[in-house]
């Protein structure tokens, strides 16, 4: 029978299937961080269980580590306790860990792929919803809760019900200056924050095939914002080229065997999806959010919407509430909205290509007066790579802050926060109320829009700078 990518990966991992019960699925890679693991390790201790496969488990510190002065002890005692707990747990249970100060430390979803640990056809889990990022490689990757973390630690398996599948077919080519971030924001606005619920999304079509691995990660990363369990993209030459030679990628005969297997993974031509959405990439333009969930977005060239224009009463009410929280008036051109802070980073857009794209825009320009521009690389490797290319200087000369790696202002668990009422343009993935600090207001944007916004001080596309630069 014809099968989709997700179905193939699923069936290759079923340890046990029994009627009326969830399938027991083997987990190839379990990523761990400080926020969602302490209670799971506690559970193991309480029940005197061990970590079954420490060699398929990897921990890193990311969510609440500081992004300055990392050589000093973490100032916030609670953050410190959480990081210490992770270090102690990893030592006790034999789990490899990349701690603050290590060259491989960084955001868990940046670290896995750059080490070559995330590969096609794998099952990847982490106690973090943006695990969907790893689906860019054709892996089935999804976020789990802490008791599932405990389950995987103890058994290297998870009991799961099969997901439904949805194809997101993106035809045509993205216009110049339109990025993967704009595409995924547009997808979420189109299908809604609940549109992907119960589904694994498979992104396919010409526009997806043309994307780099990093851009594909940006897309898969935000699948969760459409309510989906996971997002996937079939592996192809772009995937293999990215992996070849990375630390944990297969070598020699193993590489050939792996590639041969990976080539069998793409969805069969006649495979049936439970749902399909078709998008024309050529109609897209830079996209931003105006509201308090990632589905409340619009093309940057638009105005703040009028709640009365929403046909659905729930959407209308949500829009009214969002505009009040965001301090926005219907009809205001989005490009006239002034920001206080620009945040470039996160597992959505904190990779080297993102930094390069933003640096290309700020090079030789100055950050607008009164705007704080924070650049936070997704990992130490990204940071070092950027510095080797001189990007740190580009940002610093423009007046931006060049920081250490971590989640930072994506969720404001460390000291990097908005103050109440402050407004940001952020390359992260969530614009929920208070996400970047209590009372903070977030507009989700691409790295290019973030950079242009930092220069102009109001939400802007790179094209707006070019017209103004003369």
């Amino acid at each position, binding site marked *: 029978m014809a099968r989709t990518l997700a179905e193939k990966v699923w069936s290759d991992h079923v*340890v*046990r299937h029994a009627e009326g*019960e*969830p399938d*027991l699925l*083997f987990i*190839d890679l379990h990523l761990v961080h400080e*926020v*969602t693991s302490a*209670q799971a390790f*506690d559970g193991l201790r309480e*029940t005197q*269980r061990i970590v079954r496969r*420490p*060699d398929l*488990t990897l921990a890193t510190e990311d*969510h609440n580590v500081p992004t300055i002065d990392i050589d000093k002890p973490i100032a*916030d005692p609670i953050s410190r306790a*959480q990081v210490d*707990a992770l270090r102690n747990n990893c030592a006790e249970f034999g789990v490899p860990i990349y701690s603050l100060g290590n060259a491989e430390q960084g955001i868990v979803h940046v670290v896995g792929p750059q080490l070559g640990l995330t590969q096609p056809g794998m099952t990847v889990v982490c*106690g*973090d*919803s943006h695990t969907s990022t790893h689906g860019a490689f054709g892996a089935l990757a999804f*976020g*789990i*809760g*802490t*008791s*599932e973390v*405990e*389950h995987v630690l*103890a*058994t*290297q*398996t998870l*009991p799961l*019900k099969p997901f439904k599948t949805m194809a997101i077919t993106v035809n045509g080519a993205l216009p110049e200056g339109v990025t993967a971030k704009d595409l995924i924001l547009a997808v979420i606005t189109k299908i809604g*924050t*609940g549109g992907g*619920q*119960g589904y694994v999304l498979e992104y396919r079509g010409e526009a997806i095939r043309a994307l780099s691995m990093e851009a594909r990660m940006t897309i898969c990363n935000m699948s969760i914002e459409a*309510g989906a*369990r996971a997002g996937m993209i079939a592996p192809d030459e772009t995937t293999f080229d990215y992996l070849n030679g990375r630390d944990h*990628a*297969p070598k020699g005969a193993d*590489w050939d*065997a*792996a590639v041969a*297997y990976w080539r069998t993974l793409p969805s069969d031509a006649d495979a049936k999806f439970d749902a399909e959405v078709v998008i024309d990439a050529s109609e897209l333009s830079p996209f931003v959010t105006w509201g308090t*969930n990632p589905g409340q977005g619009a093309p940057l060239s638009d105005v703040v919407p009028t709640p009365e224009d929403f046909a659905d009463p*729930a959407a209308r009410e*949500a829009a009214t509430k969002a505009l009040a929280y965001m301090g926005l008036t219907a009809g205001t051109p989005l490009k006239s909205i002034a920001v206080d802070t620009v945040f470039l980073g996160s597992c959505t857009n904190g990779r080297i290509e993102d930094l390069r794209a933003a640096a290309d825009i700020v090079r030789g320009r100055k950050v607008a007066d009164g705007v704080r521009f924070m650049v936070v690389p997704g990992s130490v490797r990204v940071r070092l790579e950027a510095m080797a290319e001189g990007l740190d200087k580009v940002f610093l000369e423009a007046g931006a802050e060049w920081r250490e790696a971590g989640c930072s202002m994506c*969720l404001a*668990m460390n000291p990097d926060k908005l103050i109440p009422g402050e407004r940001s343009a952020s390359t992260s993935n*969530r614009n*929920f*109320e*208070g*996400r970047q600090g*209590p009372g903070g207001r977030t507009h989700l944007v691409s790295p290019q829009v973030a950079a242009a916004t930092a220069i102009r001080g109001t939400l802007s596309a790179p094209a707006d700078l070019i017209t103004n630069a003369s």
Partner: protein
Amino acid sequence: MEKFTVHTGKAAPLRASNVDTDQIIPAEYLKRITRHGFEDALFAAWRKDPEFILNQPQTQGVTILVAGPDFGTGSSREHAVWALMDYGFKVIISSRYADIFRGNSGKQGLLTAVVDQEVVEALWQIIEEAPETQVKVDLEARTVNAGELTASFEVDDYVRWRLIEGLDDIGLTMRHVETINSFEAARPTFKPVTR
């Protein structure tokens, strides 16, 4: 895990859709490393508002939350379930949940009952008019009963069985350790290890 068959208690109406886990428990509380004591964190931002439903005298002691659609969206933090349970909630009733939240709830023994939105509206009306109404949730019969209203709800069969039996997930999986061993032995050699 405690066995769950029938639960009867007071219910609170939460007239909001898309209640994401950042609202259920703000990120600042995720720094704790214990598994209990999250009751004060539940809806922490909203509870600063004296008008918020859980700050009303009539909702004190509630054990059932009746919420709008898409409850529990956003971050996968299981703390959202702990906070709801530590506060005293045993059952959530809504027309739709985020998947991860729902999965987390099932594991902890928090019942997430799915009813039609009309049933949610009817329940809201009943408990707003008579906050002392004892709402009965019967997991065996899959029914919710409040005053004159009786409606059936949906719950995943497997989760229902586990809740009724009070079974722990890891223990269940450990029964199949031989099967896991043989699966592991047959994995391709090109799969990566972390060290």
